[in-house]
């Protein structure tokens, strides 16, 4: 179960997990582009209901918001946008701007004087507090604040803007008609201008404070929710540098640059940006009088906290702990409980490996509820559930807790946490070995409409929870032998989380594991061995385990044993129960492979006890299988059979296809063995039943391409048919066996010794 709490970092543009635009104060000013938009608004007001069709009007209204919020664009682009929604209006806007730009200064002055008319009258065209109304009023205010020289400058800028637009449209027209000579002439001209044009592209002009804020919040929310849609790291950094060049005091840009640097895993620049941001924030905190000293101290605390988060993100746990200690100390000194709560959560994240960390977490949840911090509280609950799941607590209690926190999420519309919760349920169900439930939860997350899409039009589909759910889905499909479906899911993952993105490691590991399993099934051990390095890079423990399995399959028993013992000690220390049980099973297999099943028994019993205690059904039934097999070898098939009857039900219900096949195969073997002493008629009956079971097992093995196992099954079937005297069937099976046997290498392990 992967941790789903990486996104715990504090983001100043975010409260309770929702990204907001950071509004420090509305600062805007008139630019030629804004004048063009004002003209558009004015025109829209002037043309009556009848002149513009309803469809066009709707399209125009939709166009308005991006125009008001977005960065300045060139006149020709603006025309094109308007033309797309309403050609008729575009024409009149064009004419009016032309008149204004080619006229005199007084035309512009007159225009602004007339603007305020739209508010007057009994039924004003624009409501004063509407979005458009606010924009109009901002513009009028900004215009009236301009000094003499500024007004003139604005007018010349407008003329310039208009001329550039004209030139552009002229050029476009030229391009179409261009005769050859003209084209050549222009080529020369362009060559000269090329270097200058490049500059123009690189600095696309300043953004107003509002536009900059919009840009930042948009990019920040994209980074959080759907990284692939955001600008690429390089181009985003370029934009930010540009922004900072025009306004070095715009501190939020530094924070975004920090987030951006995190994307490319650049420790150095991200530290730099983060500290710069907080140095700057401290200023604004000190300047704003409402916060006063309080705001200043606050940013200090969060600065230290964020530094801790940064170090944690890069795996510098010791550094992170130091920074966190600092944050806690300062927060304690100033009695900031909210900050302390954040610190507590982080303390848990850092101390996750320690056994007593759940105490911290319980405290954290209680306090967070007390201080009314739903985000932190339910994050705490989720972590707690995760930990309890590993500690083997009752599933119903965990699900109850998750349900309660879900209530909290829906109440506060914390969509991010809802996703995490579902992903976590998927993981928990898988941990307990209930693949159907896991499948159902994963599907639910994927087909659920996120709350966010209602809020901001951003589909939240690039988060860790989605990656986790999809990975589980891929593994579940692979378990059931639907490899095509699994690779389809993985392909989708690759698209959604490109290899250099934050959560890509999840699917990489998942992909390699599936490939490894397939290679092992196929008997291509060298292939599996080559995959081990990749797995080790992503998850060292898993890698060691897989290495041991490969060694075992290649009959290098002593090496495998050494590796497994080491792994066992390590996992017992880190309380990785799942892995401990798997390792114990492998050790047991080693024992009975080397013909000493008696030693395997205590090991298996230990594994069984553990898996029962932690309620890991999947592992428990696998242990039972092993146990039954050991008993079979020891010559007590009746016992084995009764043991198998206990385990067969969960395996057939939830187990992987391979396990199903192995179980059926084992049942058949036991049936044959226990029938040995029976009277002939009963024996024949038992053998018939065994053949049936073998057929079933064969089908299961065929699903996951386990040729070796199929070979064994066929061999066994042939022997049984032989005993029953059914020559024709026997010959058929024998031929099949012969075919398979020629294809496969022989590993020198006696048949009976394989489970």
């Amino acid at each position, binding site marked *: 179960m992967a941790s789903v709490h990486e996104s715990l970092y504090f983001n100043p543009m975010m409260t309770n997990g929702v990204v907001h635009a950071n509004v420090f104060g509305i600062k805007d000013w008139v630019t030629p582009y804004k004048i063009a938009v004002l003209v558009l608004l004015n025109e829209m007001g002037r043309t009556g209901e009848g002149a513009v069709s309803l469809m066009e009007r709707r399209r125009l209204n939709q166009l308005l918001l991006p125009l008001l919020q977005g960065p300045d664009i060139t006149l020709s682009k603006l025309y094109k946008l308007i033309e797309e929604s309403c050609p008729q209006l575009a024409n009149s806007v064009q004419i009016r701007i032309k008149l204004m730009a080619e006229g005199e200064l007084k035309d512009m002055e007159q225009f602004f004087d007339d603007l305020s008319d739209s508010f007057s009258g009994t039924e004003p065209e624009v409501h004063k507090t509407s979005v458009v109304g606010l924009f109009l009023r901002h513009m009028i205010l900004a215009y009236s604040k301009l000094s003499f020289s500024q007004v003139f400058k604005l007018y010349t800028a407008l003329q310039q803007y208009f001329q550039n637009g004209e030139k552009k449209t002229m050029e476009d027209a030229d391009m179409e008609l261009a005769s050859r000579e003209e084209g050549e002439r222009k080529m020369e001209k362009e060559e000269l201008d090329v270097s200058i044009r490049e*500059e123009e592209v690189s600095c696309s002009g300043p953004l107003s404070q509002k536009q900059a804020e919009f840009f930042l919040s948009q990019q920040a929310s994209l980074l959080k929710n759907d990284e692939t849609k955001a600008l690429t790291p390089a181009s985003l950094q370029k934009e930010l540098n540009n922004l900072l060049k025009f306004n070095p005091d715009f501190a939020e840009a530094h924070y975004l640059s920090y987030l951006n640097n995190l994307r490319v895993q650049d420790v150095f620049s991200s530290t730099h940006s983060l500290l710069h941001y907080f140095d700057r924030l401290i200023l604004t905190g*000190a300047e704003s009088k409402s916060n006063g000293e309080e705001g200043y101290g606050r940013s200090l605390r969060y600065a230290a906290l964020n530094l801790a988060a940064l170090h944690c993100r890069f795996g510098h746990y010791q550094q992170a702990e130091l920074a966190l200690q600092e944050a806690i100390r300062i927060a304690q000194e100033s009695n900031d409980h909210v900050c302390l709560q954040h610190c507590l959560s982080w303390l848990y994240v850092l101390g996750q490996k320690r056994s007593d960390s759940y105490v911290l977490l319980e405290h954290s949840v209680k306090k967070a509820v007390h201080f009314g911090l739903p985000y932190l509280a339910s994050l705490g609950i989720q972590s707690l559930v995760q930990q309890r799941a590993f500690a083997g607590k009752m599933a119903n209690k965990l699900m109850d807790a998750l349900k309660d926190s879900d209530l909290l999420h829906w109440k506060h519309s914390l969509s991010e946490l809802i996703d995490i919760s579902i992903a976590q349920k998927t993981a928990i169900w898988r941990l307990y070995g209930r693949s159907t439930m896991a499948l159902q939860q994963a599907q639910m997350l994927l087909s659920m409409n996120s709350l966010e899409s209602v809020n901001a039009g951003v589909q939240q589909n690039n988060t860790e929870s989605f990656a986790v759910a999809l990975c589980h889905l891929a593994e579940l499909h692979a378990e059931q032998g639907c490899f095509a479906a699994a690779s389809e899911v993985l392909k989708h993952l690759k698209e959604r989380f490109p290899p250099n993105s934050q959560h890509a490691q999840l699917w990489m590991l998942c992909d390699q594991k599936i490939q490894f399993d397939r290679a092992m099934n196929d008997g291509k051990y060298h292939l599996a061995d080559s995959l081990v390095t990749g797995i080790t890079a992503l998850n060292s423990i898993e890698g060691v385990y897989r290495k041991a399995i490969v060694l075992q399959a290649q009959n290098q028993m002593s090496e495998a044993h050494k590796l497994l013992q080491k792994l066992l000690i390590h996992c017992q220390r880190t309380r990785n129960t799942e892995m401990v049980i798997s390792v114990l099973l492998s050790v047991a297999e080693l024992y009975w492979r080397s013909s000493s099943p008696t030693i395997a028994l205590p090991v298996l019993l230990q594994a069984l006890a553990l898996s029962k205690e932690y309620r890991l059904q999947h592992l428990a039934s696998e242990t039972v299988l092993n146990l039954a097999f050991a008993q079979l070898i020891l010559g007590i098939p009746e016992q084995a059979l009764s043991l198998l009857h206990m385990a067969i039900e969960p395996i057939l219900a939830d187990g992987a296809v391979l396990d199903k096949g192995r179980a059926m195969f084992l049942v058949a073997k036991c049936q044959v063995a226990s029938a040995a002493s029976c009277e002939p008629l009963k024996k024949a009956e038992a053998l018939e039943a065994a053949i049936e079971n073998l057929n079933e097992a064969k089908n299961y093995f065929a699903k996951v391409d386990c040729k070796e196992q199929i070979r064994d099954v066929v061999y066994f079937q042939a022997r049984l048919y032989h005993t029953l005297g059914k020559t024709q069937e026997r010959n058929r099976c024998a031929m099949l066996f012969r075919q398979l046997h020629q294809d496969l290498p022989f590993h020198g392990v006696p048949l009976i010794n394989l489970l």
Partner: protein
Amino acid sequence: MAASSSIVSVAATASSVPILPSSCDFSNLREIKKQLLLIAGLTRERGLLHSSKWSAELAFSLPALPLADLQPPPPITEEDAQDMDAYTLAKAYFDVKEYDRAAHFLHGCNSKKAYFLYMYSRYLSGEKKKDDETVDSLGPLEKGQVKNEALRELRVELSKKHQARELDGFGLYLYGVVLRKLDLVKEAIDVFVEATHVLPLHWGAWLELCNLITDKEMLKFLSLPDTWMKEFFLAHIYTELQLIEEALQKYQNLIDVGFSKSSYIVSQIAVAYHNIRDIDKALSIFNELRKQDPYRIENMDTFSNLLYVRSMKSELSYLAHNLCEIDKYRVETCCVIGNYYSLRSQHEKAALYFQRALKLNPRYLGAWTLMGHEYMEMKNTSAAIQAYRHAIEVNKRDYRAWYGLGQTYEILKMPFYCLYYYRRAHQLRPNDSRMLVALGECYEKLNQLVEAKKCYWRAYAVGDVEKMALVKLAKLHEQLTESEQAAQCYIKYIQDIYSCGEIVEHLEESTAFRYLAQYYFKCKLWDEASACAQKCCAFNDVQDPD
């Protein structure tokens, strides 16, 4: 004109006046003096006042020439004669800062001199307008965006001329300046290098190059002309890059060959000594300089820093009053006054004067840092952080600002947070013990004693200024019960103090003796123990050396 035979072919085609790229040796001081006088005249004619001033100053430091050796003014060419009237008029306008008017009358002139003045007036007019606009821009975000509108046109025109190889040394210089203002650093460096090849005597081009080179590696890869001017350049840039040893060596050489009277060199040496914190030497040199050139304002801020460090109140007060009389609206003056108030603990007033200095020149780096220090004194940490951040924005390599930021956060009791800043400062000044001691203290606070030990040891190894590293190291060893090493450190500390021969009271001396006495006592070295114990008796604060 003995050296004229060595004219490089580029120079011959590109420069209108026969300026002689001179050879590297200083044997012929007369020749050098002649060249200096010539270039001073040429730069003056083109309105390049600072270069002219520099050349003239340097020329003044050399012995006067006899009449026979004085050079006639360069011959007037046909082109010059044509443009003479326009040039004379325009130069007059230029001198009274009516740049547009000057450019208007120079339009269409063909001679190199007139063309340069034409372009230069346009450039300056753009700069002047830019400064005026900053006050009157359309919006707050536009404030960084106001730029010299003329730059782009100038660049296009100059690049055409450059490609046609029609630019002389001055033209190249102007082209380089335009490129630098457009942030095209790489191209600018290339052009400045070319300018130094064509016209090595023009100090302005060298100085611009100095500002663009950020590290030693860059310097290595420049192909510079082999002239005596290069020595001045190298010395200057070594000072800038904090390679003080090399810089001092170069300056000493220059003095040895006969520039001993140059106030420029003397002041540079003083600055270099200031940078390696050899305060006494720097002070004496500055005092000498003041005697020679009592109305000099340049570098006096550095002088005041030295006086400040030594707490020489009366001298600083005298300097401040004197400079105030000379010119109170100079950045340096404001800085000196700021330092003066700071020394008198009138920090509000000090901050005020530093602010004034910044109003006079917003890119004057030192003032931001000093203002930060003042705010720190006033316990206004947020304003201090702001000031330091500004300083870093102006120059990322300002180690004092990084150090100041570190100190601020240390005062705010965030030892881990300030590590980053101290590290930055340490990176910039790897051999400065103060940063290392600060780092060590932070590590000590964070209970990372191994790192702290390393820092203190390194601080001692690079030459500890405050003589505290060893004591701190000893105490750390003491804490870790590594008594052997602790004793070693204390011994070294005491040796250091006595070899220094300073009578300044060292608080930790008694602690050292006391520890040593105990240590020897434990080691059963009775004689040494009693000797140390007796030393202890001389101090009041150690009563019971048990």
